[in-house]
């Protein structure tokens, strides 16, 4: 297996097979929120950026700070701090570079810090002991997987908007069942990496 195909398979694995939302079940609360298609694309890209940066920073904190000083138990607090810092940083950059994006996200990126997927991927990287390259790839592909999941869910949600969903199932229950059916389709990728 040459290097390229191993990396390629790892990326396909992170985006499709072990999709952050449908297989690792992280960030489900954010993905489940009903959104229009455009907002979901922008929110997904923002989460992807934050996830990649925080994966890299958390890897740095883990290997440079926590491991040598055997303070792994502080991992949760350190990683949370890093995630919050990265989100604030991204919010600053996005509001400068693309102000119109901020309107669609009602100009607050903080919910991304509260997204389980971002912290989850960071912790998974730390536990799996990835090298820097793999940590970066896993963060980036995790983000792309989250973007894919959110876009699919938004597409399905817009179709459900006019569906005659029974009264008790309106809103969150039907969104969770839709995510379940999409996850059922994603099982097909099992075995690819």
């Amino acid at each position, binding site marked *: 297996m040459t290097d390229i195909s191993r990396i390629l398979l790892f990326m396909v694995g992170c985006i499709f097979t072990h999709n952050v939302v*449908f*297989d*690792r*079940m*992280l*960030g*489900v*609360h954010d993905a*489940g929120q009903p959104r229009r298609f455009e907002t979901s694309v922008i929110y997904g890209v923002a989460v992807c950026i934050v996830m990649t940066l925080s994966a890299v920073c958390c890897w740095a904190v883990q290997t440079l700070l926590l491991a040598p000083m055997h303070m792994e*138990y*502080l*991992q*949760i*607090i350190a*990683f*949370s*701090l890093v*995630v*919050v810092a990265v989100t*604030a940083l991204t919010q600053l950059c996005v509001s400068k570079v693309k102000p119109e994006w901020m309107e669609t996200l009602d100009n607050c990126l*903080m*919910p991304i*810090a*509260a*997204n*389980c997927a*971002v*912290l*989850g991927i960071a*912790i*998974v990287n730390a*536990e799996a002991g990835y090298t820097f390259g793999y940590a970066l790839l896993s963060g980036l592909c995790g983000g792309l997987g989250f973007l894919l999941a959110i876009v699919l869910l938004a597409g399905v949600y817009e179709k459900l908007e006019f569906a005659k969903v*029974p*009264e*008790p*199932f309106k809103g*969150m*229950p*039907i*969104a*969770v*069942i839709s*995510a*379940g*059916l999409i*996850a*059922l389709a*994603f*099982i097909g990728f099992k075995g690819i990496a």
Partner: protein
Amino acid sequence: MDNRTSNGILAGNPLFRLGLGVCPALAVTTCASAALGMGVATACVLVCSSLVAFVLGKVVSEKGTVATWIMVTACFATVAQFILKGWFPELASELGIFVPLIAVSSLLLSRADFASNNSLGAAMGDAVGMGIGYIIAMTLVGIVREILGQGTLFGSDLLPFTPMTLVALPAGGFIVLGLLMGCWNAITAKKNGKEETQA
């Protein structure tokens, strides 16, 4: 005090009605014992973080709330991880990465927001109510998924036909949780008429 608690359990059940804390609810509930453990751990962290959130409520500015709540819950999550690793090692290994993830659970953050701008009594009542409601919900999902998924309940064999491995997988988790949410809405809506839930 008590109507807040009862609201937390039935009408305003965090998992089924408000859809909070869904991530751990899907991942961990493949077996009922782990679900119960997770529910209790989350409930304890919830009560503590609501208390601290109430105290800090006046101090923290409006913009920085999310960041502070994350820090608060991160500390309590670390404490919870210590306790679990120390006294219930096999439960800790089962829960895996979801104990640290209590730090960013949407349940804790929304209750912290609620606690920060309400009276102490309301905050505590709500935290306890939500905690108990969450435990009930998690255990219910855990029981259903364990019976259908593994065919056992707390270890004892139960299911006549071969278990449905889908229910143990994430996809099955979503579907079972969605169905339970729907049934819960149907039951609670029918029971107390159309009374609106206080989020």
